[in-house]
């Protein structure tokens, strides 16, 4: 390449790099600035010069067809590329991006499937080892600290520029042969990119820009690749490279997202910290950075209610400076500041300051773009829907409530107007299925749940980002949601996931995915042996059936599935009922759900088999006694047993010789459901009375614990009824007995009862 060419190596997202780049540009005063970045995005990226653009922002390119590939270029206010762009636009330079166009980048990424991930990670380990060694030679614990101390804090332009190119070139020489061997595809990818960049540089020179008036800005690693005299890419070669059908857009970005990306340059781990550094560099006042940072930490700790005095801030700054001095540095690096904060604010414990460190490192900044700059298909789709559904007023930063009535509005003429609230609901459900935080549904109480929905709507920049990202899943909201649900269905492997997807697809009005989910549910159902999982699913389906009809959605395919679920649950009941009391809680819940389903869909599901199984459970003695009790109470509810049978069963269950905990546990189950069914059966109480009378002292103590629990949640009028019943039985008169029994306990009795709490069961 031409020797007069000005090449400036950078690290992405580096405030120091931006700072020196500005000085460098002032010094060279170029006519043409060439920047590493997709060449077909030049026009789009130039729009970032608009005054209303507020970083962080990003360029996103994505393929239209599967497999979805993306490339993302985030820019913060301190990105060197962003600085070059702003400077160049101000001075009227020609600015071009010179990397491969996005459609080629994406295609090449799509085809990268040959490499064994093990080889890839081994190469990265090798590469990281080199970086660690460099840091170790300088006495630093990690490369980031080394980098910050030696480059971000280096205020001499010349030594910065020389240093970064030299280091990157040397490291490149250490890794490049190994890369060619281990990762030939990556190696070639890099070669192609650099050949294209050289081609674009050559083109600029041939257009008449003199080389000494051109500044090329590339990642430091590429400096050597640009400088070489190797051939540039010819027109024919460029034509031969395959391209993927793709789109690109600018989008707002957030520091939070930036900080969660791995390996994208200096400032992405702690974007807000690096923004602070950028401001201090601009103000020629880098020395104040530690004071600003640590005061922010203190401020944050104080708002969380911790004690963080100014005196401690001063001590922390002194400690950070001392740590820096021990490493021979000039200003503390982020690690020094962290350690000082942990020692001084956290008394040595990270846990106390971790949250504050995170907040100040990352910050909450979200970028914004003026209207019209970023327009992706899904954004347009959402905008169209907002307008059509008359929701445009809700697109504001203030949270507003919206109540929807899903029923047909018969007062209006057109069908569209009649169902506008239903369409709105579908739209909002689609957004929340995509995890776009525009609308949050509020819980509405049961009686009105069938046709009313309440939402809170709030438009934030984060919503904008989430909508742009939905483009990766499909070009309209509907396609994106379908894709999302399909993914959930494929990744989840439980009955619950499939049921949830069925519910969501019904809410979002997606027929295809609905039938897919049904098929998955059916497969899972056969494999599931847990009674409570299946009852939960059937309860969910029954819920959809009850309320789904409002949504103009064909729910008929659900019928056979609900039947199947119900049947399987019924058949699993007895098998699942051989369990301990802890596991029984889930089963009891399941039985209640089954009863609800049986009641609501009696014409659909096979209640006969269900109640047969309940009968078996009620009769058998070898299952969980409490569950048998519950089953028996269901039989009572449905009048499947008469008075005599009831008395007989109670006396059988509570006969002498049956351990007290089993007998009383059974009664607890019996009393756990419909109490009025019990209170009306006098034979039952007679048997219970007999049972209690014949217990010896030790057994009585045991039984008392269970019986007390069983009666514990009876309401006071129910307790009165019990007392009256017993009064009749004992012949002591209903009222006087009730009065005697509901008296306050005296001290002796209370002590006796308290002793029961310490009763030791030898289970």
């Amino acid at each position, binding site marked *: 390449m031409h020797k007069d060419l000005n090449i400036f190596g950078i690290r992405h997202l580096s405030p120091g790099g931006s700072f020196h780049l500005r000085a460098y540009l002032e010094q060279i005063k170029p006519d043409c600035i060439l920047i590493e970045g997709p060449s077909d995005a030049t026009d789009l990226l130039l729009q970032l010069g608009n005054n209303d653009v507020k970083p962080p922002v990003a360029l996103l390119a994505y393929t239209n067809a599967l497999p979805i590939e993306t490339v993302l270029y985030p820019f913060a206010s301190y990105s060197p590329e962003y600085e070059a762009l702003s400077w160049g636009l101000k001075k009227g330079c020609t600015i071009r991006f010179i990397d491969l166009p996005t459609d080629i980048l994406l295609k090449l990424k799509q085809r990268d499937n040959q490499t064994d991930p093990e080889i890839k990670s081994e190469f990265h380990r090798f590469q990281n080892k080199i970086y660690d060694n460099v840091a170790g030679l300088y006495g630093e614990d990690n490369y980031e600290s080394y980098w910050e101390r030696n480059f971000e804090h280096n205020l001499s332009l010349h030594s910065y520029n020389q240093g970064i190119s030299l280091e990157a070139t040397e490291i490149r020489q250490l890794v490049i042969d190994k890369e060619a061997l281990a990762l030939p595809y990556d190696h070639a990818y890099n070669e192609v990119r650099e050949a294209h960049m050289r081609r674009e540089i050559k083109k600029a020179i041939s257009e008449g820009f003199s080389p000494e008036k051109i500044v090329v800005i590339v990642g430091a690693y590429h400096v050597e690749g640009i400088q070489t005299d190797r051939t540039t890419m010819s027109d024919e070669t460029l034509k031969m490279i395959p391209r993927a059908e793709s789109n690109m857009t600018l989008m707002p970005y957030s520091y939070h997202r930036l900080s969660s990306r791995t390996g994208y340059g200096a400032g992405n781990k702690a974007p807000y910290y690096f923004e602070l550094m950028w401001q201090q560099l601009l103000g020629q006042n880098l020395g104040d950075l530690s004071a600003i940072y640590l005061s922010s930490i203190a401020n944050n700790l104080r708002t969380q209610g911790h004690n963080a005095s100014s005196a401690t801030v001063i001590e922390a700054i002194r400690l950070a400076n001392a*740590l820096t001095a021990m490493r021979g540095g000039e200003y503390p690096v982020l690690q020094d500041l962290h350690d000082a904060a942990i*020692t001084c604010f956290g008394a040595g414990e990270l846990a106390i300051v971790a949250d504050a460190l995170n907040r100040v490192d990352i910050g909450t900044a979200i970028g914004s773009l003026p209207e019209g700059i970023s327009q992706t298909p899904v954004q347009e789709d959402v905008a169209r829907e907002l307008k059509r559904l008359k929701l445009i007023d809700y697109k504001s930063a203030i949270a507003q409530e919206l109540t929807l009535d899903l029923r047909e509005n018969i007062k209006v003429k057109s069908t569209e107007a009649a169902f506008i609230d239903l369409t709105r609901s579908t739209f909002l459900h689609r957004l929340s299925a995509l995890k776009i935080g525009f609308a949050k549904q509020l819980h509405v109480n049961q009686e009105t749940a069938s046709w009313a929905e309440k939402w809170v709507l709030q438009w934030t920049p984060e919503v904008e980002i989430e909508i742009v990202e939905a483009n990766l899943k499909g070009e309209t909201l509907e396609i994106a949601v379908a894709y999302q649900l399909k993914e959930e269905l494929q990744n989840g492997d439980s009955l619950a996931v499939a049921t949830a997807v069925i519910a969501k697809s019904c809410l979002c009005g997606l027929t295809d995915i609905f039938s897919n989910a049904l098929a998955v549910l059916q497969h899972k159902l056969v494999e599931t042996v847990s009674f409570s999982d299946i009852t939960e699913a059937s309860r969910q389906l029954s819920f959809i059936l009850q309320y789904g009809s409002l949504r103009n959605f064909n729910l008929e395919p659900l019928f056979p599935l609900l039947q199947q679920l119900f049947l399987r649950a019924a058949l699993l009941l007895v098998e699942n009922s051989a369990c301990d009391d802890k596991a029984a809680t889930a089963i009891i819940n399941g039985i209640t759900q089954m009863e609800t389903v049986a009641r609501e869909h009696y014409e659909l599901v096979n209640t006969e088999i269900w109640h047969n199984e309940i009968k078996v459970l009620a009769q058998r003695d070898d299952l969980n006694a409490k569950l048998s009790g519950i089953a028996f109470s269901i039989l009572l509810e449905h009048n499947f047993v008469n008075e005599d049978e009831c008395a007989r069963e109670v006396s059988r269950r509570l006969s002498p010789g049956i351990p007290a905990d089993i007998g009383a546990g059974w009664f607890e189950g019996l009393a756990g459901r419909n109490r009025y069914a019990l209170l009306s059966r006098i034979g039952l109480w007679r048997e219970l009375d007999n049972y209690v009378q014949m217990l010896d002292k030790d057994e009585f103590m045991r039984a008392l614990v269970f019986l007390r629990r069983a009666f514990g949640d009876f309401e006071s009028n129910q307790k009165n009824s019990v007392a009256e019943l017993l009064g009749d039985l004992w012949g002591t008169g209903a009222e006087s007995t009730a009065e005697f029994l509901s008296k306050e306990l005296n001290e002796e009795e209370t002590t006796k009862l308290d002793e029961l709490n310490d009763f030791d069961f030898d289970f």
Partner: protein
Amino acid sequence: MNNTTDILRLPAEILYKDELEALKSEDLNETKPIGWQLSPKAVFKFITGGTSKGLTITPKYIGHNRLVEIAIATLLTDRSLLLIGEPGTAKSWLSENLSAAICSDSAKVIQGTAGTSEEHVRYSWNYAMLIANGPSNEALIKSPIYRAMETGSMARFEEISRCASEVQDALISILSEKTIAIPELSREIPAQRGFSIIATANTRDRGVNDMSSALKRRFNTIVLPAPANLETEISIVTKRVAEISNNYQLKAALPTNQVIEKIVTIFRELRQGQTLDEKQKLKAPTGVISTAEAISLITNSMALAGSFGNGSITDEDLAAGLQGAIIKDEEKDKIVWKEYLENVMKKRGAEWRGLYNSCSDMNK
């Protein structure tokens, strides 16, 4: 101290005299903080190890170099240093070596106990002289902190949270004003540059005599963790066992790596409440099982082997030591140890069989 070989335990500045001399001569041209005999970097090297003038500097504190750096930086800012941690995490050891490296004197120590009084912290009187002549310089008995302030050197305060709060609070004025007032002589003794205090406190004592926040604020606190991984802990144990056996002239062969690895493995697993491969959860015993205990367990076993055995550690020796170290609360710990033996150690194969047999014989 003419014949140092007969002294039971040598202070660090004498034990590592050669290393300190070598570092000093290497360090001649470095700028040193006032009152320090070594530069901060040399102090760091003395603690974490390296070579100086061809002499190997043995590492004194292994595994957490950054904490050592923070400790030294704290003392550089003339702040006082508080080292806290579980028992046996080398708090005192680090504090002794830091003071030895910085001012060649680790002997100015106050041991915090329930009986420590304010006089121990500040000064007291020779009462015979006090009654005979009234308050005078001659009658004054200076505390270690007093002497450190006069000479601008390090004072150590061990187990600070063991002494009563009002005694602790006597430090507040010393640390913030850096003077000791002697109203009896109408005088104030200002501290010379280089004065600082290294205190240690035990996390297990939390709540006994909690430090007031006014006092805490005057310290930079560093929490010393248990060794981060098996290798570090093995190297710590190996090194200290060799040093101690040399010191005490134990007549037994040094334990093999295998023995140390076994002991450290058992200790780590019981301390963390899970096996090293994280597959099995364990019950942790009631007491602390620190690295320091592992060291003393092995040296004890060496003493047993040297005095009563054939000079090399047997499984029985180790079993006796383990029994004593792990079982502090008779009943519960015995069950914990039994479970560990049956569920973990027994299944570890032939290598562990001997130790398992001895331990289960012992734990009947």
